[in-house]
């Protein structure tokens, strides 16, 4: 039986073919190329490249940055979503737009904002120098830039979810004598857990993979302020292709893991959603 919205079989095949070709060319092929290049000289050089001191230091720094910025954004994201969905207050729509700001501003500009604020010639530069504090071209700057870039992920995921759930269950909990924290812990958190995890996943992937903003504030000091994406660039510019692709393949691996976890979560999410009334 054909419905009016169903296109002819030929057109369907063409559309599917275009989509698949596009995916193969722009997504699958590069991914294969990354792993291919990384392992071109064999497994030994690959291992050497990723265990080189500078590579290890970049991996450690990347993990450290993610370990700091993801929890910060979880706290911020949950707090902002809670405030936006459960309370009425002036400036609410402004807050919603501000959350999206990092998505709409070029990462390079985001990085430059921090240089402008904390750089040697920036607003707080002299004061920082006086107190012997380093932010730009140091780890704190990278953390700041990463937090800024990744802060919409958790909030964006939670706001629609919490909006849909309303506040009846929270009101029921407090009417039964629960404190604010107990209500959050026993009622709100279980209701948003899958969405939260999903947001954390995306936030983490971006925190580890961010290039532009981090590049501006990092200073590219080898073994000190180089994250994995920056390290890849340096190696590539030095014609160390095996090294560059070896580290890049780790990032690509992270992307694949994120993708799989995301799929599993979406599946759980829907399962949970369909049981909801």
């Amino acid at each position, binding site marked *: 039986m054909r419905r009016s919205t169903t296109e002819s079989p030929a057109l369907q095949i063409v559309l599917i073919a275009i989509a698949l070709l596009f995916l193969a060319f722009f997504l699958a092929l590069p991914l294969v190329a990354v792993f291919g290049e990384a392992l071109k000289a064999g497994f030994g050089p690959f291992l050497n490249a990723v265990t080189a001191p500078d590579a290890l230091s970049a991996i450690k720094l990347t993990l450290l940055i993610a370990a700091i910025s993801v929890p910060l954004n979880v706290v911020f994201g949950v707090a902002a979503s809670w405030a936006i969905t459960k309370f009425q207050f002036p400036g609410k729509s402004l807050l919603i737009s501000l959350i999206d700001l990092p998505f709409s501003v070029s990462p390079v500009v985001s990085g430059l904002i921090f240089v402008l604020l904390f750089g040697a010639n920036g607003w707080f530069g002299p004061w920082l120098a006086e107190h012997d504090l380093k932010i730009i071209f140091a780890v704190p700057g990278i953390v700041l830039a990463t937090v800024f870039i990744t802060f919409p992920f958790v909030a964006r995921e939670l706001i629609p979810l919490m909006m849909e759930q309303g506040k009846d269950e929270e009101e*029921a909990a407090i*009417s*039964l*004598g*629960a404190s604010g924290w107990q209500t959050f812990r*026993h009622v709100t958190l*279980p209701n948003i857990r899958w969405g939260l995890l999903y947001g954390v996943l995306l936030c983490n992937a971006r925190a580890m993979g961010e290039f532009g903003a981090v590049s501006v504030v990092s200073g590219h000091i080898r073994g000190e302020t180089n994250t994995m994406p920056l390290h890849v660039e340096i190696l590539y510019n030095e014609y160390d292709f095996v090294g560059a692709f070896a580290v890049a393949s780790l990032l690509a691996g992270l992307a694949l893991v994120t993708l799989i976890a995301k799929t599993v979560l979406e599946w759980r999410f829907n399962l949970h959603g369909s049981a909801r*009334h």
Partner: protein
Amino acid sequence: MIRVQNVTKTFGDFAALHGIDLEIKPGEFVALLGPSGSGKTTLLRIIAGLEFQDGGEVLFDGEDVSSRSVGERQVGFVFQQYALFKHMTVAENVAFGLSVRRKGRPPKADIRARAEELLRLVQLDGLGKRYPGQLSGGQRQRVALARALAIEPRLLLLDEPFGALDAKVRKDLRRWLRGLHETMGLTSIFVTHDQEEALELADRVVVMDHGRIEQVGTPEQVYMEPASPFVSNFVGETNQLPGGIHVRPHDIELVASGGIPVVVENVFRRGGSWRVEGRIEGHGNVVEFDVDAAEPAPTLGDTVRIQPLREREFHKHAL
């Protein structure tokens, strides 16, 4: 004794309540009845402490609770959509109020026993391990009730308790709730837009419109002696005859001569009588009235003569 004194509430530009005064005696079952936007739910939420009034006081047993939170007022609130905790079992839902207690929390075994006892009370024993999603609407409603009763509330508040249920379940649950109210010696207030529900269940009905109380009285008083045209219209069916006269459909009889001539436009059976719809000749006012089904049904297009048996007159200035 619950006392609401001169309570006002506005949301932005919208005045939800204008100076409400109300008294509820211990053991009473009171209905807040009104159309949507009448302020009935706002009033219920203010009594609960889920919303706070802009002016006036709420007193529980003479004590001003206006600044107390809902948790401190010890009220049981049953939400329209039940608001059960989806990820908790039925037993955990019922036990919630006791298990989050910070002072004087009973031992775990006691909480469990109490939850089971409450589930027996609402006739859901054996379903404690289920999740809310696995229950029917009527069962969920009773879980919500058991959960609210677990904290031994001094006041039970219900927001459209039967709104989301189908007609049959609604009727059974109504009767059952009334029984529960009596056996447990509760003081209860419920919100409804269904006049039948209010008249059947409540000891006293509070009829509200546009943020004001139109009338407070027993179901009998509200139905038989409506204080305003609004009450007359909203509670039960009413015909408006020329001259501000309100008559119930069952308070009209057919007469052979005199009375008011009405052209019959529609006749259908309603239970044990014919429901006749017609227009007053030369006036155009629509009139509905009942004729005993033992009599032959009036013929469409005929002119019949009607006589009000009991009527109420509302003068223009009362509108």
